[in-house]
């Protein structure tokens, strides 16, 4: 039997589609889809191999319960009864807010909806969050303040037609390759590229301006651009006048921030900042692409606001071919946010503190819902260590390897009374669990993912769940055991979502068949929205908010003289549970390494490919050195995909005060030669 199942790629947030080539219940390959509007017949190397991990022998196939420190296989019924029993026990003993749910940006919208419903309606807590906390929560909090909506303003297909693309803290070629394809096309079409990155990433090779700023100096850089633009009278006065508020306050904050004045903070020649500012301001069609290089800072929210300020001052937003593209990291991190897998909002960003919204959900779900905001993922860890949080139900996330300062996360998880982890492979976090429930991969379920251009797209089932149940079904079974029935049919869940969410009330499976829909989709007839904020911003007037440079929580000193920054690479994806199990991907980069500038390396006597020790105040790792001129002197860079040499033992668990994102992108570190 041979079938081709069109589905959405499970890796980054771009949302490429492909066919799974299924022969006799084995998925043997990937076929690209030319008619899909996102990928248009193209895929990156991860997409081309997305079938490999699905039927890997390491997949978890049976529920596991820990007994005397060892996992024992048990039946589904036994495991589900046990989990439900323990959840109830803890809820009865310590109250609903002693429980928390971490949903998954890898799971479908429908599953995330069920999980947040489970937390709120069944457990009775708003303690629900997911990994967007550690990637783009700053986007949600920042762009929301500036524009009234924390998502991409425009669509991918506008990129090839841009006159100017400002890429800051983002490496589209490696992290979002099919968005990178559009940047490549824009370059081929003559677009001018501005790259601001401590590393000379690929688009920098073709860039008109390449700015190599220090990690953590982005606000200074952007404010200096705004300063120069206004000083040179290049700002869009009409746009500022008609579409925004707060210009005077903003000017007050940036008026002393000349390109010359930030030279020491940013490590960038003023002339380069001026050239970039000029280019961005005078281009007819200009956009900003950014990613975690901007968000993963203690000033993540302010970074995002600074970019929104820049865009509004130049009138490069709120129209076609001009806008801001936050490149979302995971396949459904946009969706998991949209669907309300967050402690403060229901689906479509309806606040839990808003009584009308709460009443609507209470009525639909037939229960009374908690009134207070829940804990963010970050604060759940603090509360666990404090002993206030007793139980954590984690779905498809490996906090120990992905959250900053792994040792601290381990301590938090060790403090819990009960930990349930739902996973497809045995992760380091799952190893800590009392119960491990085997989840289903993207190929084993129906549903939708929402990509970074706000597009809902279908996920379609190619094979039966390897462990027998989809993640949605598991949640519903536990809910049932706790006395609450939830519909688990994905299409019906989608309808329920739509009925409760004005932002995408027009979404349903049948409408997504062709090429999905971009929210807002206000009704069944609404065609979706490729560009938002067109006539006016969602919040009305765009708000120019003054933000000022603040150094990272940790700055280099004599003992730790380098700035360590981290990121993702082309061949691997996050903790590598899937890409490390894909032969060719793992072959390209089988082990962790640290990039160090050649002058720094020479000074320390470090040679290419030789072993070095990277140390921070939180931990140390031995990896091989990649000596290169592509990274700024004084800065070192590491990927975080290798669980045997996990970079996040080094990173800093200092957090943005607003969105609670961790500072992965800048901490103080030292590098030492290892004598073998």
């Amino acid at each position, binding site marked *: 039997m041979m079938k081709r199942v*069109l589905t959405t790629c499970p890796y980054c947030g771009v949302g490429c589609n492909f066919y799974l080539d299924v022969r006799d219940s084995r998925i043997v390959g990937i076929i690209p*889809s030319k008619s899909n509007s996102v990928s248009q017949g193209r895929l990156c*190397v991860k997409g081309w191999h997305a079938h490999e991990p699905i039927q890997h022998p390491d997949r978890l196939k049976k529920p596991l319960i820990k007994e005397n420190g060892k996992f024992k296989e048990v039946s589904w019924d036994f495991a589900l009864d046990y989990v439900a029993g323990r959840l109830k026990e803890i809820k009865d003993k310590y109250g609903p807010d002693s429980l928390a749910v971490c949903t998954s940006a890898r799971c479908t919208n429908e599953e995330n909806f069920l999980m947040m419903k489970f937390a709120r309606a069944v457990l009775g807590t708003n303690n629900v969050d997911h990994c967007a906390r550690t990637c783009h929560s700053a986007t949600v909090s920042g762009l929301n303040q500036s524009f009234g909506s924390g998502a991409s303003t425009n669509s991918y297909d506008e990129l090839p037609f841009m006159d100017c693309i400002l890429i800051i803290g983002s490496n589209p070629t490696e992290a979002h390759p099919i968005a990178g394809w559009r940047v490549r*096309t824009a370059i081929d079409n003559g677009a001018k590229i501005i790259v601001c990155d401590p590393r000379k990433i*690929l688009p920098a090779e073709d860039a008109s301006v390449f700015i190599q700023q220090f990690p953590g100096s982005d606000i200074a850089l952007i404010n200096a651009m705004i300063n120069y633009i206004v000083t040179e009278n290049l700002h869009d006065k009409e746009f500022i006048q008609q579409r925004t508020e707060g210009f005077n306050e903003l000017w007050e904050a940036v008026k002393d921030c000349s390109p010359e004045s930030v030279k020491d903070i940013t490590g960038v020649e003023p002339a380069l900042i001026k050239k970039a500012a000029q280019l961005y301001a005078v281009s007819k069609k200009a956009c900003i692409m950014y990613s975690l290089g901007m968000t993963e800072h203690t000033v993540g929210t302010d970074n995002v606001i600074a970019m929104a300020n820049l865009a509004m001052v130049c009138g490069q937003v709120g129209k076609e071919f001009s806008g801001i593209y936050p490149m979302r990291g995971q396949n459904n991190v946009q969706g998991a946010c949209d669907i309300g897998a967050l402690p403060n909002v229901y689906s479509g960003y309806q606040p839990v503190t808003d009584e009308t919204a709460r009443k609507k959900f209470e009525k639909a779900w037939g229960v009374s819902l908690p009134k207070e905001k829940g804990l963010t993922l970050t604060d759940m860890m603090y509360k666990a260590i404090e002993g206030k949080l007793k139980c954590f139900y984690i779905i498809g996330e490996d906090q120990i390897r992905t959250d900053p300062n792994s040792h601290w996360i381990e301590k938090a998880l060790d403090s819990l009374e009960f930990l349930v982890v739902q996973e497809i492979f045995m992760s380091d976090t799952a190893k800590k669990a009392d119960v491990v429930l085997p989840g289903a991969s993207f190929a084993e379920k129906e549903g939708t993912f929402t990509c970074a251009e706000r597009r809902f797209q279908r996920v379609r089932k190619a094979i039966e769940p390897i462990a027998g149940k989809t993640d949605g079904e598991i949640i519903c079974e536990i809910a049932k055991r706790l006395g609450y029935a939830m519909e688990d049919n994905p299409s019906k869940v989608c309808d329920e979502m739509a009925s409760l969410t004005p932002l995408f009330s027009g979404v349903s499976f049948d409408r997504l068949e062709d090429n999905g829909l971009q929210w807002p989709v206000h009704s069944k007839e609404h065609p979706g929205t490729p560009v938002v904020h067109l006539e006016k911003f969602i919040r009305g007037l765009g708000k120019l908010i003054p933000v000022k440079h603040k150094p990272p929580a940790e700055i280099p000193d004599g003992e730790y003289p380098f700035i360590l920054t981290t990121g993702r690479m082309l061949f691997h994806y996050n903790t590598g549970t899937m890409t490390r199990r894909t*032969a060719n991907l793992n072959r390209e980069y089988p082990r962790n390494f640290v990039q160090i500038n050649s002058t720094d390396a020479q000074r320390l006597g470090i040679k290419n490919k030789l072993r070095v020790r990277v140390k921070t105040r939180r931990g140390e790792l031995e990896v091989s050195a990649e000596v290169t001129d592509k990274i700024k002197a004084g800065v070192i860079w590491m990927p975080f995909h290798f669980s045997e040499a996990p970079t996040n033992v080094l990173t800093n668990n200092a957090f943005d005060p607003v969105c609670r994102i961790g500072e992965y992108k800048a901490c103080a570190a030292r590098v030492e030669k290892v004598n073998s």
Partner: protein
Amino acid sequence: MEKLFITKENLKVLIASLKKDCAEFIAPRYEHLDDIVLGDTKADGRELLNYEGNSVISPRAFLLPQTEELFEIKSAKNSEFIAVEDKKKRIFYGVRPCDIKALKLMEEFFIGGEFEDKPYKEKFRNSVFITLSCIKKCSPESFCFEMGSGPFAKEGFDLQLTPLNRGFLVEIGSKKGSQVIRKHKKLFSKAKPEDEKEVRTLSLNFTKGKKRINYKRLARIMRENKVQESIWDDIGQRCVVCSGCVTLCPTCSCFSIQDRLSGAQGSRFRYCDGCVYAGFTRMAGGSTPFPEHKDHIRRFFEHKLNIDTQRYGVSSCVGCGRCIQTCPGNISIRKFIEQAVDGS
């Protein structure tokens, strides 16, 4: 050889009969929207009798699948392997001439020479290929005529159909092809002179304004290293190692072998691999004869456009355009050829 004719109605009858005689009837069919993909239509009848464009994947995807189980590992400890054999009879319908030329080259590669590749040979020998020649360029990226592989197949097919106003012109290319005709004699008639005339017109229309690429000259230019280094630099910088080109190319044959064990048992797979990866030539100790990325793509182009031209007398780039369509770096082998020839 004498040419025959079949009406559209009779072609349907022929297909229905052929389907009874095979395990899989692989034909172009619509998948999502206007995606055309070769697939098994034996049961669902969704094959396109005639179509514009080409399938996203070529027949290679069936003969050398992206992943293929070679052996069942019965006992890892005792190194006990049992060969997984695929003896399914497949009939391929609607295969384009460019892909037929590719199959001919792949046959020579996998079956000719000192060693035979049994898994490939088995599948290839059990297959029948019915070509549908091209009356229209299948995509803006394709350049089959330029590479000498279209719009009609010259060899390598069992039957070749050319769509005409009143039905299909039929050519027989092999014994297997004549067996099909013999078995279904009643469905065919002799072609009329005007049919052949129509084919000539179609051919003229297709080739109008197009020029054949002198691939022997191209090979010489590459052999003598006359391609400007800046062209290779540019290509090296564009390639983001997606592997789409080597996965879709109908003449790419490289693979790797990988075991997957679950306890004491498991499978030995082979999977498509290719020269775009740095790891493709990297040895266990970490050293590699091709440290620069541009050299990986160079190897790909050299193989298709130089080495194979020397080996087979024809280039193994058949001009299907798939690698161009799928490239996120906007690399075009066609543009490369033009640059190489013009620049020398």
